[in-house]
């Protein structure tokens, strides 16, 4: 009993250890100091001149770097300057046109070439050739919690303000939301159409794409994406490619020699199926209206009796408002959206019928147990 009493007293009186709660006063410093060493400045060089600049993130100790698939990846020589100011070369391991990502491997360059490049770039010191590269890196397999409103830092060499060992730039803001990317670049639709993290901070600046997005604790969240205009808002879009997408890509791309691959096709990242969808539409029993004055609206002109569409509840004169979550304000948008869907993807339609809004789902013959034979080639 006495022993127990003593234990009670000592435990209550125990002073706090270092491992316990410590009031931190560093604000964003922890995040900044974590991310800076893991972001590199990229330059493309052609001849003696710089041809493109950007950022990249180090994902392995020996110098694998993930970045966006920008023009500099195609430059004659790619040069990389680390946070410490080391000037290195890089070989392209993999390009993914659908995801608009690239994987490069850092390597030392010989003194002669280094000297020339350092003049061109005003930067860089040479690592000793005997040292193996041992770089700080992001473990992008590690998940991090993220909710809208969370502080984030976007770090990259925007406007190439930083040279040599100077720290790259950063902007801070909050994580805004996660959504599908629907954007364009110079009037052509941007190929990456999967999830992105929308950021409440301007990341859409030259040189920033390829840079890192981290949270307050310095945990890796994603990579700043290429400059695009959102099709939904017609504004410059600030976003990052999420960590999970990057991780998937990294797993695929590692170990593969420099070649293009279509990349796997997670939902949303699909190749354009120009006309197969029209066949599928008619298979399902749907004929769309061609009538319209200035703009053709996606009205249903006819639904074949007994067809899949009919059984799903679609009716003549229904106005299709959205397909699989994508608004289709006119036939062009409808066609565009349909063409990007996978052959066996079901259609979740939201339609207007008279004064009501109705949701319905059309599953295709191939995904049901029905024995309706397939007609016509899909893909």
């Amino acid at each position, binding site marked *: *009993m006495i022993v127990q009493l003593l234990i009670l007293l000592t435990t209550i009186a125990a002073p706090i250890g270092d491992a316990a709660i410590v009031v931190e006063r560093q604000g964003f410093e922890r995040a900044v100091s974590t991310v800076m060493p893991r972001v590199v400045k990229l330059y493309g060089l052609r001849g003696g001149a710089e041809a493109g600049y950007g950022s990249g993130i180090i994902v392995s100790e020996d110098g694998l770097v993930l970045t966006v698939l920008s023009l500099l990846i195609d430059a004659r020589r790619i040069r990389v300057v680390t946070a*410490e100011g080391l000037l290195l070369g890089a070989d392209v391991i993999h390009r993914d046109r659908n995801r608009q990502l690239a994987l490069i491997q850092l390597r030392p360059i010989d003194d002669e070439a280094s000297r020339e490049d350092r003049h061109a770039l005003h930067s860089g010191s040479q690592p000793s050739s005997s040292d193996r590269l041992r770089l700080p890196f992001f473990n992008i397999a590690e998940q991090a919690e993220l909710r809208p409103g969370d502080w984030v830092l976007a770090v990259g060499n925007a406007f190439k303000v930083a040279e*040599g060992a*100077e720290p790259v730039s950063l902007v801070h803001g909050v994580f805004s939301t996660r959504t599908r990317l629907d954007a364009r670049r110079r009037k052509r639709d941007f190929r990456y159409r999967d999830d992105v993290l929308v950021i409440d901070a301007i990341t859409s600046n030259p040189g920033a794409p390829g840079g890192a997005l981290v949270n307050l604790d310095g945990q890796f969240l994603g990579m700043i994406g290429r400059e695009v205009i959102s099709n939904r808002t017609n504004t*410059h879009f600030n976003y990052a490619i999420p960590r999970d997408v990057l991780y998937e890509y990294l797993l695929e791309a590692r170990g593969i020699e420099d070649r293009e691959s279509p990349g796997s096709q997670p939902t949303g990242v699909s190749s354009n199926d120009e006309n197969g969808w029209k066949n599928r539409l008619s298979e399902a029993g749907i004929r769309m209206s061609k009538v319209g004055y200035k703009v053709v609206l996606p009205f249903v002109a006819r639904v074949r009796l007994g067809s899949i569409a009919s059984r799903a509840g679609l009716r003549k004169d229904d106005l299709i408002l959205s397909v699989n979550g994508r608004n289709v304000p006119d036939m062009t948008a409808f066609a565009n959206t349909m063409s990007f869907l996978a052959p066996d993807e079901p259609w979740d339609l939201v339609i207007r019928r008279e004064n009501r809004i109705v949701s319905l789902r059309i599953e295709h013959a191939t995904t049901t147990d029905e024995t309706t034979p397939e007609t016509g080639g899909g893909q």
Partner: protein
Amino acid sequence: MHAHPPKPWTYRWGVAAVCAALTFHPQFTTAADQAESDLAQVVTAQSERIESIARVAPSAVCIFDDTQRGGGSGVLIDPTGYGLTNYHVVAGMLETRKGFGGLADGVLYDLEVLGIDITGDVAMFRLLPPKPDFQFPYVSIGDSDTVRVGDTAIAIGNPFSLSEDYTPSVSVGMVTGTHRYQWGTQGNLVYTDCIQVDTAINPGNSGGPLFNINGEVIGINGRISVNTRGRYNVGFGYAISSNQIKRFMPALRAGILARHGTLLAVTEDDLSAGGTAFRSGSVRFTEVQPAGPADRAGIRSDDKLLWFDGVRIESANQVASMLGTYPVNWPVTLELERNGQRRSAVVRLEPVEPNMRGAFEVDRDINAQAVRRVLEAFQRAVLKNVDTQRPTRWSWTIDRKYHPSEDGTTRSDERFRVTHRDGAMGHMQQIHADGTKGRIIEYDDNEATQRIDAGDNPFPLHPTEGRILAALFTVYHSLLEPLSTIDLSPAVHGGGDAIVENPQASITTPGHETQNRRLNPRIVEVIHWFMPSGAEVRFSFDTRSFLLVRAVVEDKLSGAKATIRFSDYRDVDGIHWPCALEVATPTFNYRETLTHWELTR
């Protein structure tokens, strides 16, 4: 062990202890309690920020040209209406030097442009008080060397001329880079060693203040990076650092076109230094212009530059960036290495000519006003009560100790009894060690004579000695006269300067390596005084305390040159006065200690 039934009290103890712990343990507070505590913390911090902003926002100025068309922003830094802005905000007002400044009180005040710094894009203005003794709201200038990435940065100004009633717009962000370099246009508007922020800064914010969370000005906003969208904030704003501006402020107040300084030498990254260079790059001089300041300081090509004004140098970019923050003639301290040998050198910078059309004439009235301001402040600092404290008769004892000259010769110590009286010449009588009297020197601000005995004929003093005494006479008489009676025509405000203590001492003392802190020597305001004899004295007043710290005497005609340093300020019968003088000339140096004061009013 023993098969007892459980003893009730042990149980009760255990349960009681657990209950007690549960009641007080933080982990067992509910999620709602945590949310409440979070919110309370956020509300408190928000209130502090609101209060901070409310305190400083009234000092933000909406600047308009003389046709009342909008342009930019500014900030007031003292209650008499002095303020800072960008040069490019007032560039269109240089013909008349007049404009308008609107404050949050809704009033539009008359504005006059004082000095400009075209290279560095800074200008000073003054709002005219609508009536005497009017006090403007103002803010203090902070130390930009303490700024770090992550610090809160608040910008206040008039973006897009949105303000209809002169209330400024406020934006909050953070410092995202320090010591940044932003190229200028045709040599002007170069932002070196500047502060980068992601605070929203848009056209119209130019010239406005950047505050830290304590409400001190750490920079003046002036540039942004823009992308293809157009001239809008994209998270990259740049502010000229407050410490750079401080060096230029005396000149700007004086209405001068403040020039930046150059070493007239080129540095480059030393690429031959290979190895695992981890941030410790090496920089060397590659070109040293003959007869330029670096050359005259003995710097040669291939000399390595290790430290610059207390900062360890790692790249040539860094040198260029730091250099861009200094005015002409500023003494910069360099630590050099040649063939393994280290040495220090203090080098005064030569001027950088800004790219401008036409000349910028100094407005005489503005300059005179600046002289008056310094002398008024000096008098307040020494006389405490300007009206009653000024003595009409001063008397004191000097102990003069000569330092050995370079050739090894030395002069013996001397003692003097000095008397200054209104309307009479200054009187110095030597007192020998045995108490007997010796030579007599009489002087004023024009001439000085000496006699061995009272009955002797006086003969002129050596010109250098004479000019020194003339300068001191001026201090006791002209500089302390009531300003309403004083003739300020011999005085011109010449801008600022820095006094580097101990210039010969090496700055790489043990332990300094870890400090790596920028030297910020004492900044002084220099008043040029043209003496009747034709000599010129440059009086230097500390820009914060306004105490007289130095007087440099120069007489090109006679070749006289001397530097007098004033120190050891003490309370002397109600007056704050320097009781030690250090005098240096090309041929002799001595130290004077002043004691046994007798003052009559």
